């Protein structure tokens, strides 16, 4: 049997607020966000780093929160879907709504954060660049058509 280690404090700046919890060293970032901080908008779809549902931004770069340990974000800046769009919907969220870019909505938080990072790096992507930029996030419902349209529309609105 595995030895359960002492819990250690993890304090991170999550969605602009300092949050702290005591966690086992083996605690994943996803479990820390969901179970310790109550931020259940970050969804877990595969727990092996393929589906991208649990994508969050750590220091503005996308990470799979199922593959990262909570202790790794100690002192770091984390953005989850709950921190997107402080006043009303973020333009990406608005575009997803208008273009019917979500069905069951389970992939949506991760998809939004990957799209946010993509547009931060490349504010005027082509359709092909959007498709490749989102290739790390699986959606089982939409066939991606309206997700791609929404991201292109959000980029057009912003530029």
């Amino acid at each position, binding site marked *: 049997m595995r030895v359960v280690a002492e819990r250690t404090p993890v304090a991170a700046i999550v969605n602009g607020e300092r949050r702290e919890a005591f966690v*086992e060293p083996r605690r994943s970032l996803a479990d820390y966000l969901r179970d310790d901080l109550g931020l*259940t908008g970050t969804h877990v779809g595969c727990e092996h780093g393929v589906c991208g549902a649990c994508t969050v931004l750590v220091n503005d770069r996308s990470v799979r929160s199922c593959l990262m340990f909570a202790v790794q974000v100690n002192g770091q800046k984390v953005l989850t879907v*709950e921190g997107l769009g402080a006043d009303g919907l973020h333009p990406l969220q608005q575009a997803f709504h208008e273009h019917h870019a*979500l069905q*069951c909505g389970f992939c949506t938080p991760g998809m939004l954060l990957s799209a946010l990072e993509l547009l931060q790096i490349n504010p005027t992507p082509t359709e092909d660049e959007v498709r490749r930029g989102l290739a790390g*996030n699986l959606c*089982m419902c939409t*066939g991606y058509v309206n997700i791609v349209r929404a991201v292109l529309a959000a980029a057009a609105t912003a530029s």
Partner: protein
Amino acid sequence: MNATWVGQRFARKEDGPLLTGHDRFVDDIPMHNVAHVAILRSPHAHAQIMRLDASRAAALPAVYAVLTGEEVVRLSRPQRGRIPLPASPSVYALAHDKVVYVGQPVAAVAAVDRAAAEDALDLIDVEYQPLPAVVSPEGAMAADAPLVFDEIGSNVLWHDTFPYGDVDGAFRRADRLVHERITIHRYLSTPLETFGSIAQFDPSTQTMTVWGSAHQPGQEINNIASALGLSPGQVRMIVPPMGGGFGNKTRPIYHILVALLAMKLGNRPVKWIEDRRESLLALGHAADGIMDVEAAIQHDGTILALKFRNIENEGAGIDFAGRHNLLMLSNLVNCYRITAVSYEGYSVVTNSCPVIANRGIGKPFMCLAVERIVDAVARATGLDRVVVRERNFIQPHQFPYETPSGQTYDSGDYPRMLRKALDLLDYDELLVEQSSARAEGRLVGIGIACGVEPAGSNLAYGMLISGPGQLLSGQGEAARVRMEPDGSATVYTGGIESGQGHTTSLSQIVADELGLHPERVRIAATFDSQSHPYVQTSGNYSNKFNGHDTAAAIGAARKVRDKLLRRAARMLEVSSDDLELGDGRVRVMGAPDRSLPIAQIAARAYWSLTDEAPDDEPGLEALHYYRNPRVRTPDAQRRVPVQMGFSAAAHVALVEVDPDTFEIAVRRYGVVHDCGKEINPLIVEGQVHGATVHGIAAALLEEFVYDDEGQLLTTSFMDYLKPSAADVPTIETDRLETPSPWTPLGTKGIGEGGAIVAPAAIASAVEDALQPLGIKITGLPIIPTRLWRVVCDGGTTYPRSREAYVTAR
């Protein structure tokens, strides 16, 4: 009444919390003091359990309870299949004497958290005596095959033949016969949210509350209650929003397992969330099958009759046994005027994961089989693929059209649909491009496939297996509409939401009925058996929303509307026939100045009980149980309407196969769909996009692969390949709207069609691309390395036979 909201591209009402991370899927429900479950699963495909000792796990301080197969047999009753089989094994939530597939649950632990529960699994000692396993359905039919369920004495659960029409006469009259053996593999839509269940038993009221995944709440309540020896009234089922379903979240054993642990723990909620590996390994797979198709044809390409012989691999389970076979009776002739058909089906058990419903269950395979044979007819006659289809189409004036197996197609215009799909991608231009690409040595192919999309099941079809005594039959849905004292409305139905936009669509429908804005119609989307009416056929499956959920909601809304108008008639001193509803007001027709706000009437209905009330009933609430009036039991010729409405679609695909690597790229993809009247075209297109990509992925990427010992080799998304945005093109769409004469709004189903037709279109496209190499496609999926091997071997048929279904790598 003038419809104002139905038909509009109305952006979805349910999006808000999903976009901001505030929705509550089952794993997100805040629970106090919850015990977390981990499940120990069989590493063997077939083995005797010689000894199981969980005492070391149970002794851990972090562990609340352990459940073993021996206890499950003592504490619960065995499961029956959804279609009761003539001979049925006793299946429990946990294996007890032997295991029959890899991943079968063997024991379960409830502990303080999931990690502790998984730690405890390591301390459960199980001694297995491995037995020979069988994973191919043909192998399982061999006389010396190991028996999956010893008590049945055979691996063939069911076998039957349905001759419809003069098949032998047609085969005698035919100019020639065309035969193909078509195969399909195991795959699954894999909703991104896995299965979940939380159960809590209240010893004081003897009530079990279950929050969890379900498509058919009535059936799940019955499964849990009967397994635990409770009345359905003692089981409260709550179905939170589901992160996708596609028919996959229908495994009663998990709710029973969690409920048994909850009963042991008394008052402490018990929670199990399936992980992805468990899901791919053991939730369920769409059945693989081997179908021999024979067509009797004339020289002009007219198909006189079809004979099918299908061997369906049901895996090691009974929940869905027989269903793939019977549901294929709904699209046996697809879009074609074929008057004689015989269907012979085998349901065979093997040591593989039990099958489950998956978007279109059975029908993607039947569509593939028929469309492959139509292309084979074109090859055999030298006619164009389009011409053969046009020659055999059911014609627009022939609707309603009765097929040999007893389906009545309600409406459609297949010739125009196909023409429109060819125009959508500019077929003539594609042919020119293809011809110049071929001249350069490139392998470019155009795929064409048409398909009907059946919607709404008449569950009496199960009587074809179980006999006329089967309790479950017909199709219907229940709804309750309550106009609140503020004039808004709330709708409760037995339907389940898993992303299809039912909330918005129902709001649009009820808004029209009650003269409200859709934002004033609230849909109670989280099903709760204490508030939501239901029948045993309730739920979200078989594409039934369009004609059944809508009819139930309309029925209830019209009862409320009648009450409202009769109250208003008294208040306005006119006849209720002279009143109309709109913009939140009741108006006297022809006298626009005489009107009342609906909210004022609604308030009086609840507050002012000194008012004289219609039917002497205060309030404005109504319940409606809708039963499809066209359902019936099988007739003497065993013809039965398996499904109730028939949408259709034509797909055109442009693919390119790399001549060196045999990698297949889908360059363009067009769909013309016809689901009758569209409630919300924005949502309809979304369903078409998603289902079509499911179908494309099933044809080119997704496959559960077992080795000869029954070990599943594809247990992560690194081995079981799902398409990303970079793997698929934009799905181009256009539509026809031929309204159904039988649904209240003229609607038909749209959730499954893309997944039914796309595999056939991709097979057609790849075959067309490979024409210079003379290779025909008779099975899916089409995998580059296997294709390359066929080419290297100088073969003419893909796949090679032993790769047709389950294969060792």
